């Protein structure tokens, strides 16, 4: 792969306030496979403004999930910086990143990734176990999050008792329960039928428009991307709008 470089600055749209929440500069990532060095992307720049709902599209292996993982503090960059709400996370160690994630990141997975031994409410409560909130307040937060996703009546159900769409809604409730700075979705509709996928996208729109949440969603699906305020493309490590 050649050495790609890219720059994408999302213009403020919809509920966006204009303040830059995420600032990515000269981000470079490469993997080593045996003796071969695979450049995922190089010198990527990206600004995400507060209140934006962005979709990131691209073919498999284009580097979009890697970008998402670095932004979530789950993966490390080889070079460059990522600053979220004034904090440069690329300078943090693993322990600091864990604390930072618990406060700032709400992550929605493609395969929901709920803990099967816990009820919907207990799954949603997981991020709050890392806070000092008393039990009663934790419960209130959980019920609020479940109310937002329309699943208060399923609070005591286990994941196996829920449909795929419902499980993903629980996953969204888990992502928003601690009121994170940014919500990251890694193909949140990728494992759902179109009806359930639509429900999830409506929910994300609602989180963005009603609650002003900043959302970055990786997707393969052009219809899903259309629901975002703006779509970025990543191909062969090049990020474009």
């Amino acid at each position: 792969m050649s050495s790609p470089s890219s720059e994408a600055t999302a213009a403020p749209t919809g509920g966006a306030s204009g303040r830059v929440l995420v600032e990515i500069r000269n981000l470079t990532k490469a993997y080593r496979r045996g003796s071969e060095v695979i450049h995922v992307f190089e010198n990527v720049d990206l600004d995400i403004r507060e209140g934006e709902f962005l979709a990131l599209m691209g073919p498999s292996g284009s580097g979009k999930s890697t970008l998402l993982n670095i932004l979530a503090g789950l993966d490390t960059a080889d070079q460059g910086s990522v600053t979220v709400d004034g904090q440069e996370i690329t300078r943090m160690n693993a322990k600091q990143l864990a604390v930072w994630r618990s406060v700032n990141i709400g992550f929605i997975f493609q395969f929901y990734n709920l803990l099967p031994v816990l009820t919907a409410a207990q799954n949603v409560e997981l991020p709050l176990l890392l806070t000092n909130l008393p039990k009663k307040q934790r419960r209130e937060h959980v019920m609020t999050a479940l109310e937002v996703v329309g699943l208060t009546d399923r609070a005591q159900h286990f994941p196996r008792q829920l449909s795929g769409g419902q499980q993903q809604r629980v996953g969204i409730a888990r992502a928003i329960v601690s009121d994170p700075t940014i919500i990251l979705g890694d193909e949140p509709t990728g494992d759902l039928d179109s009806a359930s996928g639509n429900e999830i996208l409506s929910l994300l729109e609602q989180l963005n428009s009603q609650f002003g949440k900043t959302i970055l969603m990786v997707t393969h699906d052009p219809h899903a991307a259309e629901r975002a305020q703006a779509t970025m493309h990543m191909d062969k490590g090049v990020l474009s709008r």
Partner: protein
Amino acid sequence: MSVGRLIWANLFRNKKRTFLTVASVTVAFFLFGALRSVITTLDAAAEVGSEARLVTSSASGITFPLPEAHASRLAAVSGITRVSWANWFGGYYRDPQDFFAQFAIKADTYLPMYPEIEITAGDADAFLRERTAAIVGVGLLEKYGWQVGQTVTLQGTFLPGDWEFTIRAAYTPTNPSFGDANMYFHYEYLYERSNGQISPGWFVLQLNDPDRAADVAAQIDALFENSTAPTKTETERAFQAGFITMWGNIGFLVRAIGTAVFFAILFVAANTMMMAVRERIGEIAVLKTIGFKNGMLSALVVLESVLITVLGGAVGLGAAKLMFMGKTPLSAFFPGFGVTTGTIGLGLGLAVLLGLVSGAIPALQSARLSVVNALRRVA
């Protein structure tokens, strides 16, 4: 929900596997409780003997008798206030396999030297007056349904034939390790029935000053050094300890078995936890994504492991405690046999250690887990 609830929920994720692991730990700790109790009981038995009493036996071994004439010379030794003697009888009641200890004693001097033999039924004087009388432990009364006043017949072994004894008193030991399943009868009865072929098996000597035990013992052995029946004299406690060693190195054997069992269970528990962590790679990655730190995730794994081993350990030790409470078939061989509080404490400590060690590797695995790789694998 609490972190404890999360551990508990994970514990019962695979109920069959958890049950089987807990069951194997339970069996191991039951075995530990039983084997350890053999050691503690033997140790306690070795402590039963008094430091204020000496035992003089043949220098050739306990199975070689001593001449009765030694008694008067022993009584003359400075520091000795009382001399008595005893013999092993080795009979049985109905069934040769049904073992209990019988001693022929020089009763008028023996009983005053043993405050451990507390007469709680019948009359010691009635026993002293009647040549074929016997004192039995309350354990024997209970076991065979005997009563004071009853005549019982034992079969002799090295002095074959029917031996009739009338139970005139029963004793309760002041120390459980002394045993409540012994029988004492008159040396004179044994002597007469054997037509004078019997002589004392060992002498018991009361010291006026236990601090002089070593000096007096050396003095006695020097006294008989050049006689036809040289002696070996030691404190009763040392004598008991020597008697215990006749069991062979049972302590070593028990410890060896215990260690082997410990390691076997360690591998079982570690394997269970490794399987559990391997199954949960995706979930651990999710928890890391949410913000759980490596240390916390490792602690969750280790605590789960400790919970399994402590649960199994507590059930196993509890079962051993209940099973060996009160009278058991082992009580005849090991008076006072039972699982002590110390054994339970040590067992629970080992269970915690087992949990910590078996959870260490899976905990390390979960801490080192790469979130990105784990999520990719799950996807």
